[in-house]
């Protein structure tokens, strides 16, 4: 069944479809002013933009964490605003979200962090199966030895990896990355970028990566879009955008 979903021949089906997305906070703070976005199955889409351009808000709208003022958001062909709590949670389980600061539950060990979503969504699993799934998820990010540590004992890069392992444990079909390399050194950033790429290849996931780290965008992105003043202003591959006629677009690549 899993294999069937990820067959390469339906790579063109849009799994995320956004049209005319508006969001403002208060009277004067219009963050998103009509974002249109399509993400195809199995694709890595990188969203670039200055800090405060509303990139994070846009992906939070996709999972219903932020409620959009206006616009159409379809994930897996389901309109997010039209879902009730139960249906929304069913969609959310199929989407992984890696937060900027990893958002590990700091009162729990790494093992408990990973077990937390798994135990609540797959009640039929035996403790042995849960254990195996936790080890497998940690293995895929290369951090099995951290299993009994508390989040406070981990470095920034390790926290990112554990955060990623926690999203992977539910086998999501889409993973949304909110600035996965921010605050990390160059080498760790590259490791995380490579990890993102490996996961996409191995699990055939669709990814939306929000970043302003260009090496990460170059390595991970199949397609890039740039968000400026609340709308998507440019779109293309890394090489295309690097040679763009628009000076502002090119300024990202310097």
């Amino acid at each position, binding site marked *: 069944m899993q294999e069937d979903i990820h067959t390469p021949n339906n790579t063109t089906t849009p799994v995320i479809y956004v049209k005319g997305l508006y969001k403002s906070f208060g009277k004067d703070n219009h963050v998103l002013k009509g974002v249109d976005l399509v993400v195809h199955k199995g694709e890595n889409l990188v969203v670039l933009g200055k800090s405060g351009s509303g990139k994070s808000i846009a992906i939070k709208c996709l999972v219903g964490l932020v409620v959009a003022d206006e616009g159409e958001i379809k994930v897996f062909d389901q309109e997010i605003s039209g879902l009730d709590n139960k249906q929304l949670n069913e969609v959310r389980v199929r989407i992984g*979200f890696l*937060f900027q600061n990893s*958002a590990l539950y700091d009162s729990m060990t790494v093992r408990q962090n990973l077990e937390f*979503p798994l135990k609540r969504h797959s009640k039929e699993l035996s403790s042995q199966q849960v254990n195996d799934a936790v080890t497998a998820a940690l293995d895929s990010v290369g951090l099995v030895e951290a299993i009994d540590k508390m989040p406070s004992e981990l470095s920034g890069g390790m926290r990112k990896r554990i955060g990623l392992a926690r*999203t992977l444990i539910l086998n999501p079909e889409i993973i949304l990355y909110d600035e996965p390399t921010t605050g990390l050194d160059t080498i760790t950033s590259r490791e995380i970028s490579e990890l993102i790429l490996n996961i996409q290849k191995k699990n055939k996931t669709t990814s939306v990566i929000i970043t302003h780290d260009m090496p990460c965008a170059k390595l991970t992105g199949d397609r890039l879009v740039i968000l400026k003043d609340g709308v998507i202003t440019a779109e293309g591959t890394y090489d295309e955008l690097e040679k763009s006629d628009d000076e502002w677009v090119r300024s990202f690549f310097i």
Partner: protein
Amino acid sequence: MVISLKNIFTDAGNVTLFTARFFKEVLKPPFEIKELLRQCYVIGYKSLPLVAITGFIMGLVLTLQSRPTLVEFGAESWLPGMVALSLIREIAPVITALICAGKISSGIGAELGSMKVTEQIDAMEVSGINPYKYLVVTRVLATTMMVPLLVIFADAVGMIGGYAGINIHSDVGLFRFFAQALQNLEFIDVVPATIKTFFFGFSIGLIGCYKGYTAANGTESVGKAANSAVVAASLSIFIIDMLAVQITDLFFPI
């Protein structure tokens, strides 16, 4: 002026919705029994030393302070009864609840506030788990059950304090002291005073959770959440106490 008045009404509305959500979610499965027991342990058991010390001192001081007046009227034999009445009807419930407001409400406010700020609550939500149920329902239930037990414990320790206090000046046996104290206690002294502690516990948990759960972004708001939780919870204890005493007075007039 208009804005602050509007804020008060908005806040009141939000608290009402937050409370209504508690009653909606508390009866709906799945139940987080393990987390509830953990909270009971943290909230109840871990507060025992603090409540024991304050309870003992309350009993001791109350005895020493009341003694001179009673001696003046030649009514020293009323001392155990009077101490028991004041302790059980008013002083132990209110002081213990205030101590819990300081210790528990601020703790919950700070914990949930920092979880909110570091996106841990969002992380729970996007993994399809109801954070309100896991974090708020368990904590509010735990305070509602534990505060009455802590108050009963404070009653008992307070009486021992009273026994110690009375023996500074005179020589009263333990059995005689408690026989005299309990002889003066009736249904109306014990039951309404215990019932009101459930409300104290509920408001301590609910206000702590509300302040933490609705904290704004930024670390400053964590401190604010903890601080305002203590202030609001303490105030609510006095208001509930005032209402409870009047209602008792209305139903059981002497």
